[in-house]
């Protein structure tokens, strides 16, 4: 590893330790906000791992997340909790592989529609199955506190960053950048474009499922309409794009301000959340293309040009 990379790793570890100290404040509101931020950080970062380089917009986060909560919901009475997380990862990964194989050969429009409906379809299927078998929801009873959930999510976040960093340095990461630039060229230099895209989509699907599995105990009682809420997918997309998908740290700088802003909005204007969500989409497209990362790069570019002129 190069020196820069050690430095970045040191900073990352330091930030992680500081973040891990949050529960020591004992402030319930702060910790619960911390859980929300940690959850969206993991979801948005893993979303950007796939969507950043490929430009495919996935709205399947809610589907994977919901499947994860149901893994915990249906397995908690039978299996030890720690076994449920890898199971959720596998189930999420398999679902992502199936969706990816069916849709990732095709254009981005097909993909976005398909993923949008996936959560809704899974919700309908689960509801139908539960109606057939006669129970409506599932209780998830554990002795986990918000603190435990928070620490687990932080651990997962650290893992996602490491995976993202490793992918960025790998052939797969390089292949994805080429695909994002020009898929025809990618094919003609010998890249298996479909397989590369599916591989990354599996990573992001598995991570989202694990997040769902970790969050499930917080809900206590899970039913299809809470587990598969489509709003989740949209929020993840907005946060990731607000931060910018060009860098690994991009989504994080989108998640924090957006979560705080959203917290304020939903308490002061509870009836206008949909309208405001729509306006934030438009604001990103027209005012901040490339997100904060794009802005940062542009400012840096301008500064470099100025110093070159001076």
């Amino acid at each position, binding site marked *: 590893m190069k020196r820069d990379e050690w430095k970045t790793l040191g900073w990352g570890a330091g930030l992680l330790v500081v973040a891990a100290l949050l529960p020591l404040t004992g402030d319930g509101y702060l910790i619960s906000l911390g859980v929300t931020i940690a959850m969206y950080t993991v979801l948005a970062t893993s979303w950007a791992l796939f969507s950043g380089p490929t*430009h495919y*917009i996935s709205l399947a986060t809610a589907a994977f997340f919901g499947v994860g909560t149901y893994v915990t919901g249906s397995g908690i009475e039978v299996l030890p909790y720690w076994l449920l997380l890898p199971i959720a990862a596998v189930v999420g990964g398999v679902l992502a592989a199936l969706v990816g194989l*069916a*849709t990732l*050969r*095709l*254009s*981005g*429009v*097909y993909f*976005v*529609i*398909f993923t*949008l*409906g*996936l959560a*809704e*379809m899974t919700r*309908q*299927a689960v*509801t*139908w199955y539960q*109606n057939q078998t006669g129970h409506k929801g599932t209780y998830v009873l554990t002795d986990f506190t918000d603190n435990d959930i928070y620490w687990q999510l932080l651990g997962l976040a650290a893992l996602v960053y490491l995976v993202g960093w490793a992918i960025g340095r790998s052939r797969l990461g390089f292949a994805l950048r080429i695909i994002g630039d020009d898929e025809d060229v990618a094919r003609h230099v010998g890249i298996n474009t479909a397989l590369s895209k599916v591989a990354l989509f599996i990573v992001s699907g598995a991570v989202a499922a694990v997040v769902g599995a970790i969050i499930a105990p917080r809900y206590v009682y899970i039913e299809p309409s809470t587990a598969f809420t489509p709003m989740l997918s*949209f929020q993840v997309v907005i946060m990731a*794009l607000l931060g910018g998908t060009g860098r690994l740290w991009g989504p994080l700088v989108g998640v924090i301000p957006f979560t705080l802003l959203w917290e304020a909005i939903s308490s002061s204007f509870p*009836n*206008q*959340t*949909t*309208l*405001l*969500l*729509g*306006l*934030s*989409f*438009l604001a*990103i*497209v*027209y005012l901040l*293309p490339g997100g904060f990362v794009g802005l940062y790069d542009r400012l840096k570019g301008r500064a470099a040009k100025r110093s070159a002129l001076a």
Partner: protein
Amino acid sequence: MDIVITGLILGGTYALIALGLNLQYGVSRIMNLANGEMLVIGAFTAFTLFTVAQVSPLLTIFIVAPVAYVLNWLIYRIMLRPLVNRAKNRGMLEQDAILTTFGLSFVMVGIMLWAFGGDYFSYSYLSRPVVIFGDNFGLNRVVAFLCAAILCAGLYLWLNVSRAGMAIRAVAVSPEHARLVGIDVPKLSARAFALGGAVTAVGGAVISTFLTLDASTGVMFTMKALIIVIMGGVGDVRGTILAALVLGVGETMVATLIDPGLTLAAAYALFILILLFRPQGFFGRKPT
């Protein structure tokens, strides 16, 4: 038989909505994910005029169409044209268009929720039974189907016979070549987008005579319309109509035979089959 006719009637109205979307996507190359909201706006107008002033929904169409045309034209000129101009390639335009029209759809839902609240709305129009092949059907459904059939046929003829229709089809096939024969592509794209929006809004007014809707149902119709467009093939009127009928019948079958809660799952099953076996649509040739 009962199921087939109910399904065909439903499919007929779907066809109208999907044709609107197909015009927009096929010609202006913008996948408009706010299309379903345009439908709900059309339906809202019909509902309001009927309950306040007893205006027949069939007359409301003549108000909805021009208003929706102008509204969509403005959306295209003000919001989408700048994206078309700034995009470096098709992929970037696609991403921007998806985000923008999604944002737009949320904004429209938000405004409707604000103005009208989140209640379901429906009204009773021509809800008398008629007998076809020995089974009972709501007269409103039958009238809606006839209405949609007339509009679809009219649109099909217009696209195939009139000069403007030919120009629109030329742009759908190849924008570059259309430019060479003197067609003003940007202008026509804006018009096709506006026309597509108007067709969908009219579809909404028609569908409101027999379906119960609320401010946030738009996205369901967007999804169904997209599935139909993909099944039928982009820019293909015959394919769209056939796909809409297939979806209508398929959905009705699943709803009556298995569970009404599974209609979307049924639409999805069809979608997956199409993606796996005929991604170019029913009548489409394999892309090269």
